[in-house]
């Protein structure tokens, strides 16, 4: 009897080695047993016509079969009436009955989904059906179809439980990826990236080409991530890049695309007519509704609002936005044979930003090669060089200058009679308007280049002592240099009106990582059990160097950043260096009984130089188990259920993302720490303690429990996964407030506790699967609930000012025990004060607040002033009346994708949503509040309170000499918190595969033309540019803040993808 090995489990290379032997044996058996059988032959290919090497061909019901050779050819003897089963890993199995034909050509379709898909887990891989942890997989092909420049921009909505949000629309900017809720409060919540097996901190998603991605897997729960120990608490993203072919053939692939981006919406501002009416209202208000100078100035400059009713006006947003083009070129060569392989790709992307003078360039070169030194030993290497350049002034995050603000506030029309103000309506002589400047000039004359060069290389050696016992040794090196130059020419706000005038600065950061990862793997089949043991050791050393220099008062901007020495007011240059090392040991044990009961145990010990010797080592265990219910008889009888598996796991992971040397006392010297000393009172530098070392500083640790169910229905036409998790992060690495007597405001400590628990569901359905029409639908949804369980000792809450503008310095966020992290915090708007709130004193001819009506803090109130709820009932509005006014955490988020194949056409449509979260729309706090100046603003300014327009929630400019705006410190209230819920048509990709007869004529293997749209339409009630925004300065403490953010663009791309 011949036993056909489980071919799907085996490496194709192994198939090739075995094929001759097996084929030979089968041939003899077939000849001897079925003397009347006929020889059937043919070729097995994929849908592209590529031969499938090592595909299994067996006769149904018999232990007879063969595998295909290098050309996909097979030959075996079978009787008429026999059924041949053709199968291949990752492809649909096909069954064909033999009639009279002696040649049977078979095309196998790729499996859209399948339990036999291989999922990459840390330091190894496992079939999806055998997973015990929560692991998600993304199709790199789907990502590469999108009109994005970096892969992370295409992930939103594709993975359940992974919340992907943008900071804003800055070209090339990395997105926020938070897996199963944020664990850290003041630390980093981004996942660990593992690229080709190398864990990389501070990984820039721009540094690889989307087209180079072979596999993309996300480890979500602790039982999956614990193998990465102290860096895995935020989840792990595993990316393996493509390698060369091993079948002796060579593919050359060229992908050229061209796209256009534009900003689809505008923040609605007053039209020329409404603006002039508004100016008239301001004039009357400031004159106390008795015509005075302001009314006269209005009359002499603007004359009459009606004159502007049909004036087109200047849309300053249109002036600074543009239709931007992106060119993308990608070429790769993939070749090799069973002993050597080579893969090389190069990619060049040149993206114009949709704001003037901004852009993103990317140049990636990737070389991978392998060589079998012997039948047991294989050597692999890779070398990658990437150059990124993000150019243009930073749109958000500047507390003083903002081109978006200027574009909103610059007036849309100039007066008929010149009023002496600058174009756009600001007074260059007014000290209070120094922050305003022409946004076009600001953009065009600010030269900011953020250049990022990364060289990443690695070598590895894999040696098999026995087929089931092998070691893998690897060494890796990465250096990235990030140089940011910033030059303000004369025609910029800084150059003209700032104190430094023309000035430039260069900041250079150099990160170097050297690491080695070595594992040993042993697999054993014992009766009904399978055992896999993995042991490993990893070392990593990182260093960081920093340089900063600046010069100001440069007499000319002719030379730009290239001759800073011309400046006459240099700043003191700064340099620093820091290093850290990590040594790790880890192990994993996989045990399977009867292919029904699965157990995985992992353990990792990490030692980090960031911590004191006593706390240096952290230990991260995990345990998970799975039970394949579908292998049990009581399920097998239910025909609708084709697969079912329950999983449960627990594990501990860590987070060590604190700056180097935080556990140690540090001394520093700077310009402010010196003394005038000795004879002549010369300046002598003095040292001061810059960090209070907390000796017992250690890992932030997250314990996570996960329970999941994977199931398939109707022969896996429907596959679904449900997960429930509960994460508790303790010993938070919190930049905690200190008692004043220590002399330190904040010190990094291990205090506090955060909880995240949630539910995830994903389902994929193969709705139609015909030869010429296929339709697949995928849906995922996730619910996460975040809660702060503890903070610093004795601390109830952390109050945070997101510092988006100097004029709005107040705590707008709170992280409070019992509530989620980073809640919006402010006053509750009550209404506008009206006369009913006052009594009139006939004697003094003035008014007084009625008893029980609160005042507004530091400034007097009058009808038209804004009134807030007096929460503490003390009769005055102040800091004590602030409450939670918004929740930035979505109730649920997810995605819905549909993929169609109709003949040669393929179509993918992805919808993505986030529901039930709030945005602090700080733009409204600035632009929807009237002022006494000439600045334009939002629609609310058409409805300001006046004594003849009282039914409004927009305060008065001034009434009875009282300004209606709230005093500083009371400027943020719940009127500026908006529901951010949205549903987005994230992407549509339509492709057409050029028919074979054409490609053959052109000597092409295949060719596809496509048109793709990204971020096409967003259904939302949010009034800002886009609800997918978060430009808060302090990460998890200040989420979902929108102020002066770079707007998100719509992208439409066309392209051609050909393979020779």
């Amino acid at each position: 009897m011949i036993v056909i090995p489980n071919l799907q489990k085996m490496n194709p290379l192994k198939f090739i080695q075995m094929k001759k032997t097996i084929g030979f044996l089968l041939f003899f058996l077939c000849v001897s047993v079925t003397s009347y059988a006929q020889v059937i032959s043919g070729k097995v290919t994929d849908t592209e016509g590529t031969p499938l090497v090592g595909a299994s061909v067996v006769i149904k019901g018999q232990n007879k079969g063969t595998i295909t050779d290098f050309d996909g050819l097979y030959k075996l003897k079978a009787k008429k009436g026999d059924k041949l089963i053709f199968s291949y890993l990752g492809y649909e199995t096909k069954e064909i009955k033999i009639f009279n034909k002696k040649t049977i050509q078979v095309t196998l379709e790729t499996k859209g989904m399948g339990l036999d898909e291989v999922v990459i887990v840390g330091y190894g891989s496992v079939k999806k059906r055998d997973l015990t942890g929560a692991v998600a997989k993304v199709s790199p092909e789907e990502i590469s179809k999108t009109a994005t420049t970096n892969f992370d921009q295409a992930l939103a909505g594709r993975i359940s439980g992974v919340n992907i949000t943008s900071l804003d629309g800055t070209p090339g900017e990395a997105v926020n990826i938070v897996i199963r809720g944020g664990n850290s409060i003041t630390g980093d919540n981004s996942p660990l990236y593992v690229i080709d097996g190398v864990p990389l901190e501070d990984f820039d998603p721009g540094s690889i080409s989307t087209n180079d991605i072979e596999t993309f897997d996300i480890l979500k729960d602790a039982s999956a991530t614990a193998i990465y120990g102290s860096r895995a608490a935020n989840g792990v993203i595993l990316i393996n890049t493509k390698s060369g072919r091993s079948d002796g053939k060579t593919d050359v692939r060229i992908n050229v695309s061209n796209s256009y981006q534009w900003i689809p919406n505008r923040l609605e501002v007053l039209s020329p007519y409404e603006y002039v009416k508004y100016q008239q209202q301001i004039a009357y208000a400031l004159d106390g509704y008795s015509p005075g100078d302001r009314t006269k100035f209005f009359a002499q400059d603007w004359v009459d609002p009606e004159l502007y009713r049909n004036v087109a006006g200047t849309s300053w947003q249109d002036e600074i936005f543009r239709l931007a083009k992106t060119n993308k070129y990608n070429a790769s060569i993939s070749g090799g044979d069973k002993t050597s392989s080579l893969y090389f790709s190069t990619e060049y992307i040149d993206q114009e930003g949709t704001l003037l003078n901004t852009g993103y360039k990317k140049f990636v070169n990737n070389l991978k090669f392998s060589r079998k030194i012997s039948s047991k030993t294989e050597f692999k290497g890779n070398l990658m060089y990437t150059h990124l350049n993000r150019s243009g002034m930073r749109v958000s995050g500047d507390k003083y200058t903002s081109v978006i603000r200027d574009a909103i506030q610059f007036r849309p029309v100039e007066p008929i009679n010149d009023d002496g103000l600058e174009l756009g309506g600001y007074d260059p002589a007014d000290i209070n308007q120094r922050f305003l400047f022409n946004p076009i000039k600001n953009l065009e004359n600010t030269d900011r280049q953020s250049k990022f060069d990364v060289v990443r290389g690695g070598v590895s050696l894999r040696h098999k002592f026995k087929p089931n016992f092998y070691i893998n040794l690897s060494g890796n090196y990465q250096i990235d240099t990030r140089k940011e130059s910033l030059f303000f020419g004369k025609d910029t706000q800084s150059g003209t009106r700032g104190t430094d005038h023309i000035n430039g600065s260069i900041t250079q950061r150099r990160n170097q990582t050297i690491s080695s990862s070595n594992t040993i793997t042993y697999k054993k089949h014992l009766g009904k059990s399978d055992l896999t043991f993995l042991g490993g050791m990893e070392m990593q050393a990182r260093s960081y160097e920093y340089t900063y220099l600046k010069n100001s008062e440069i007499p000319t901007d002719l030379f730009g950043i290239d001759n800073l020495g011309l400046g006459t007011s240099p700043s003191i240059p700064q340099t620093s260096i820091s290093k850290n090392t990590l040594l790790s040991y880890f192990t994993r044990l996989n045990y399977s009984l009867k292919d029904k009961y699965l157990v995985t145990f992992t353990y990792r010990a990490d030692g980090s130089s960031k911590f004191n010797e006593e706390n240096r080592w952290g230990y991260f265990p995990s345990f998970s188990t799975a039970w394949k219910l579908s292998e049990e008889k009581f399920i097998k009888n239910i025909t609708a259920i084709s697969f079912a598996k329950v999983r449960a796991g627990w594990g501990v992971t860590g987070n060590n993302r604190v700056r180097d040397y935080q556990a140690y006392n540090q001394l520093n010297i700077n310009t402010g720490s010196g003394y005038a000393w000795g004879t002549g009172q010369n300046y002598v530098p003095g040292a001061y303690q810059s960090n209070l070392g907390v000796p017992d500083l250690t890992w932030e640790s997250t314990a996570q429990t996960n329970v999941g169910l994977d199931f398939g229905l109707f022969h896996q036409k429907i596959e679904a996964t449900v997960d429930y998790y509960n994460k508790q992060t303790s010993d938070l690495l919190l930049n905690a407030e200190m008692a004043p007597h220590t002399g330190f405001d904040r010190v990094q400590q291990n205090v506090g506790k955060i909880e995240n628990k949630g539910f995830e569901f994903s389902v994929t359905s193969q709705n139609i699967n015909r030869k010429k029409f296929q339709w697949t639908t995928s849906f995922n949804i996730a619910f996460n609930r975040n809660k702060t369980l503890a903070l610093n000792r004795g601390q109830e809450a952390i109050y945070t000012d997101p510092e988006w503008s100097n004029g709005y310095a107040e705590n707008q966020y709170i992280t409070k025990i019992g509530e989620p992290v980073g809640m919006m915090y402010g006053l509750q708007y009550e209404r506008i004060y009206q006369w009913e709130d006052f009594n009139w004193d006939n004697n003094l001819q003035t008014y007084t607040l009625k008893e029980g009506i609160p005042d507004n803090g530091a400034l007097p109130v009058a009808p038209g002033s804004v009134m807030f709820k007096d929460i503490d009932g003390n009769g005055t509005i102040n800091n004590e009346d602030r409450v939670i006014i918004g929740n930035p955490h979505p109730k649920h988020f997810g995605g819905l994708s549909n993929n169609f194949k109709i003949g040669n056409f393929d179509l993918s449509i992805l919808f993505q949503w986030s529901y039930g979260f709030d945005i602090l729309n700080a733009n409204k706090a600035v632009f929807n509040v009237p002022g006494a100046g000439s600045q334009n603003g939002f629609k609310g300014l058409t409805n300001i309170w006046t004594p003849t327009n009282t039914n409004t929630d927009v305060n008065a400019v001034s009434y009875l000499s009282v300004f209606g705006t709230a005093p500083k410190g009371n400027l943020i209230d719940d009127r500026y918190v908006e529901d951010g819920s949205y549903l987005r048509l994230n992407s549509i990709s339509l492709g057409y595969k050029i028919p074979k007869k054409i490609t053959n004529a052109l000597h092409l293997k295949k060719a596809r033309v496509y048109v793709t749209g990204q971020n096409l339409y967003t259904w939302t009630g949010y009034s800002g540019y886009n609800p997918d925004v978060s430009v808060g300065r302090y990460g998890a403490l200040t989420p979902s803040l929108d102020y002066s953010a770079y707007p998100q663009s719509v992208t439409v791309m066309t392209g051609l993808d050909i393979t020779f």
Partner: protein
Amino acid sequence: MKNQVFTLFGITTILLFLGSCTKDTFTENSNDSLYKAPSELSYSEILNAREFSFIKSGTPIVNTNNLIPTYEIVGGRNGTGEVLDASYLQDVSIENPIEITANLDPENYYVNAAGDSVKTYTATNYQTAGVITIANENKFGIGDYYFDVKVSTQHKEDTYSSTFNNVFHLNVGPQLVTNLLFSPIAQNLVVGTGNTSSTPYLITGNTAVTFDLLSDTDKLSIDKQTGVISLLDGYSTAENDTLYPTVQVTSTISQETTTFQGDSFLMLVASNSPIDLPKKTNYFFYPTLEAENKTFGYAIDMVEQGSTTAWVQANPSPLAAQERPEGIESKSIWINVTVGDRLAHESDVIINTQDLTQFSLGFDLSAVFHIKNQYVEYMPDGRTPTELEVYYSADYTGNNTTATWTKINNQVTSQINSLTTTPFVGLPYPGDQKIGGGDPDGQKDATKNADNKWTRCELDLNPYKDIQNFTLKFKVKSNYTGSLNDISTAARPGRYYISDVHFKASEE
């Protein structure tokens, strides 16, 4: 299959088209559909009006979508619902917006689209539109009153109107005693003789009051009904004991209280034998001028701002300190016309209205104030570019433009930088009095050079003792139009200071 492909392309095109829509930057212009009948008329209620006296409401607010409203009183009723007849309503009036036409500055004349030179502009003054005024000596006694007001607006040919019933609530209380007068102010109580103070006069206010003593209760007692103060039985003193009692007067109708204290109100000297006491002065109005507010004694009416730094607080006149009563804090206020473009300026400082009738008997009445001019340099023709004038009105009720003002510069007597020199009639001419380019006004007098010096001025109020509504006003105005720069760069508009404005009643 073809149909499916076309459908696919169709859907894709529509979706891409959706994505390509760019929202417009500007809000839509508002249109006539906004305008509706006025709504939400609201007055601040008056709870402290005095019976039969002048009443003036605040300016109401109303929702008209910013159309200028006009107002009309259409009825009223008292607290029991009885309709107010004409005898009540004849004293009630309501103000309406006033359209004004004013001149543009010459340098801002412009030619409009029709080719006409435009030199004026029109605007609407509705600062006091809707203010309800009830004349003095009216019929409104103690009680509640409610008024119905009709509001109308007009847009093009359309008129909108609404009537708001009971929209203005007026609560009238009893007249309060505003001046409790003991005559003489200084009185001698001889121990053991049982003599008492005089009975105080209630010159103003409702006489339904009681008296209470809030100070010196260990030495004095007061007759609750008459206000007569006497020494307590058993009081003894070794030497003359001077007392300044604090007396509280309580209305028995409304229980409102008024408190009187200070040496200008009553000085009692307890002695063992009779003594002679000097005559006293009652400084019945001595405002601090610390802010622009009736509470602090004055209001500013900026007629023409020009390029001034207008009316801010400064230190008081040191000259005035010599006669300023103890315990009174005072500030001066000043205006700087010499700033920026030195545009023509005019503004009024209106001092709180005073009832002079309360001192009609037995007192010598006067108003005193200190002024200073500084940095005034004459124009080429020798005239002062700016000057300060003094006015009074007997009918000012809050509206500067409608009141009748009489210039009284020549009724004032002045002493420059001295309290001892002989006063001269009139105010000193601003500046250094040098003839220079000329003296077209004929007012320059080198002996009256008040340049950068404080001048004490006094106005004899005895001719005005019968005025219940006496208002003093200072005006600083330019004698040029446009910018002084166009006339002369050497000329300077200067600064003007006002300090220690007060009214006093001295016992005859």
